[in-house]
């Protein structure tokens, strides 16, 4: 049986993926934090991907495939450390993959890397430029990770490397930014704006990663879900209430609250509540036969307050 190593295995998406892969693969993983009650046949190593110890894990486990999803996506901690973990961590991991005979690599990027802009066309494909850093510099590390991984495809063509960019991920287990937002008592929205948003269920993301591994896919792919609704409908359907605030009030106030650590998102995130970032998932569907199993109703019902 082939062995898969998952970074960020203790996170919600890591756990789901482990369960999805166990029937076909031997699974091990690394994370900052232990996974209490992990399956007995899964080795979970608590290491930092930037450290020598991580190289030791790869050397001893000798995985034939790696799924990289151990990123810091929240803004609670130090911004420099976040950047270092995400970018340098990815660079180290890519080097290890090249040096220790890894044959398949999946990097879980996200649809946010395209950036939210008024001029965005609907249903952007994978060739659309990654401009998120222009209006949302706090996530430039995730754009750099995506770029590093995409370049790796051409540098090491014999390693089947895939970059996946899923749309907004929701579910009971994952801690996504959008999930956290929709669980707020009052969801601040930008007055006079109501962009279309696409959603995908966490189980379908796990399925997409598993298919990528099983089929040895290579390339960059958007991963879409069953459909899209305006933000206001998503808030309503998850049982929330919108708090409509004009942009010129919301930005300065929430930026200040963010600096004080009282609000989880920097102000660049608001553009995603104003302008649409909709992706075309055609390429992935055609390459793998992926079909999302969870409909929009089920996705919204998976959000509990």
């Amino acid at each position, binding site marked *: 049986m082939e062995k898969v190593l998952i970074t960020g295995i203790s996170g919600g998406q890591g756990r789901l993926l482990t369960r999805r892969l166990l029937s076909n693969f031997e699974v091990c993983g690394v994370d900052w934090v232990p996974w209490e009650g992990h399956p007995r046949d899964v080795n979970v190593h608590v290491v930092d991907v930037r450290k020598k110890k991580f190289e030791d894990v790869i050397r001893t486990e000798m995985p034939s495939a790696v799924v990289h999803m151990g990123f810091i996506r929240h803004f609670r901690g130090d911004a420099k450390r976040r950047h270092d973990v995400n970018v340098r961590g990815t660079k180290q991991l890519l080097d290890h993959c090249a040096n220790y005979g890894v044959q398949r690599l999946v990097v879980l990027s996200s649809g946010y890397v395209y950036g939210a802009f*008024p*001029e965005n*066309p*609907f*249903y*952007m494909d994978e060739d659309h430029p990654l401009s998120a850093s222009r209006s949302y510099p706090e996530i430039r590390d995730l754009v750099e990770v995506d770029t590093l991984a995409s370049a790796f495809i051409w540098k090491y063509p014999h390693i089947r490397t895939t970059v996946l960019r899923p749309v907004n991920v929701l579910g009971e287990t994952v801690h996504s930014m959008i999930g956290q937002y929709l669980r707020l008592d009052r969801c601040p929205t*930008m*007055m*006079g*704006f*109501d962009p*279309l948003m696409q959603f995908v269920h966490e189980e379908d993301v796990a399925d997409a990663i598993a298919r990528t591994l099983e089929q040895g896919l290579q390339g960059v792919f958007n991963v879409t879900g069953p*459909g*899209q*609704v*305006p933000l206001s*409908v998503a808030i309503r*359907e998850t049982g929330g209430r919108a708090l409509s605030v*004009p*942009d010129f009030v919301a930005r300065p106030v929430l930026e200040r609250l963010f600096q004080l650590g009282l609000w989880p998102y920097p102000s660049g995130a608001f553009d995603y509540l104003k*302008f*649409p970032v909709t992706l075309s998932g055609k390429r992935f569907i055609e390459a793998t036969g992926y079909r999302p199993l969870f409909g*929009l*109703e089920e996705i919204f019902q998976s959000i509990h307050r």
Partner: protein
Amino acid sequence: MPAARDSRPGWLGGLRSALLPSLDALQAEIDDRLSKIPTRLNQYGFDRFGMCPETMRTQLISSVLAYRHYFRVESFGIENIPTGGVLLIANHAGQLPFDGAMLGTCVLMEADPPRVVRAMGEYWIPQLPFVSVAAERGGNQVGTPENCTALLEAGECVMVFPEGVRGMNKLYRDRYQLQRFGLGFMRLALACDVPIVPVGIVGSEEQQPGIANLKSVANLFGMPALPITLGFPWLGPLGLLPLPVRYRIHFGEPLRFEGEADDEDAVIQEKVDRVRGEIEALLRRGRELRKGIFT
């Protein structure tokens, strides 16, 4: 002696009771038309591009009232609109895009089956609060080639004014003189292999006679144009109201073009000139047919 109870409603009440049944009937008619559009909606009532009949239905009342009672629109040859993806190419005039609204209302209320006409808007519209949402729910998108292609491939009826602001903000003395056409629409028609229906709109060119266009002042404020018209700015916001001209919308027969979408400009230009010629002919015929600007 008991006081006589006045059972007659006041003039306001009278106006309401006179208007309400007809407004209800109008709403029912609009709902019926909207229920027959071929566009696929999801379980929440939106299409792939954020168009939402539930939001449009009430907004449409004012459009249909303007269509029937203000501009008293007459349409000719609407049966020329084929089913499936199609480009409506029309002349653009009148300072404010009432021509787009009337063309859209015409196709929704009179075509068989009813279609929601998708307009390709300016790049800055998505930055305007409220306007952006209203535009999107009404089926309009930013005019990027990607959006237009996606709409045509989804079998939608897309409206393009290839003159753009050059046409809309032209002066009264230039009425019915088509300005330079952009070439983009033809490349899209070729790439998506959809027919083009030329449309001549008679009436809009006289609705808001332009005297001057202060382009340098407009540039200063980043506006596309600053027209000085018969009514604007002298009458303030009231000056924005168009004259009650009568609209005549003439639909020509669908044109099909063959060739490469990325051909040289000169080759595309020839095809564009054919469409332009058709629209010119429609406008000429339309002006000959009418008895007056307002009647």
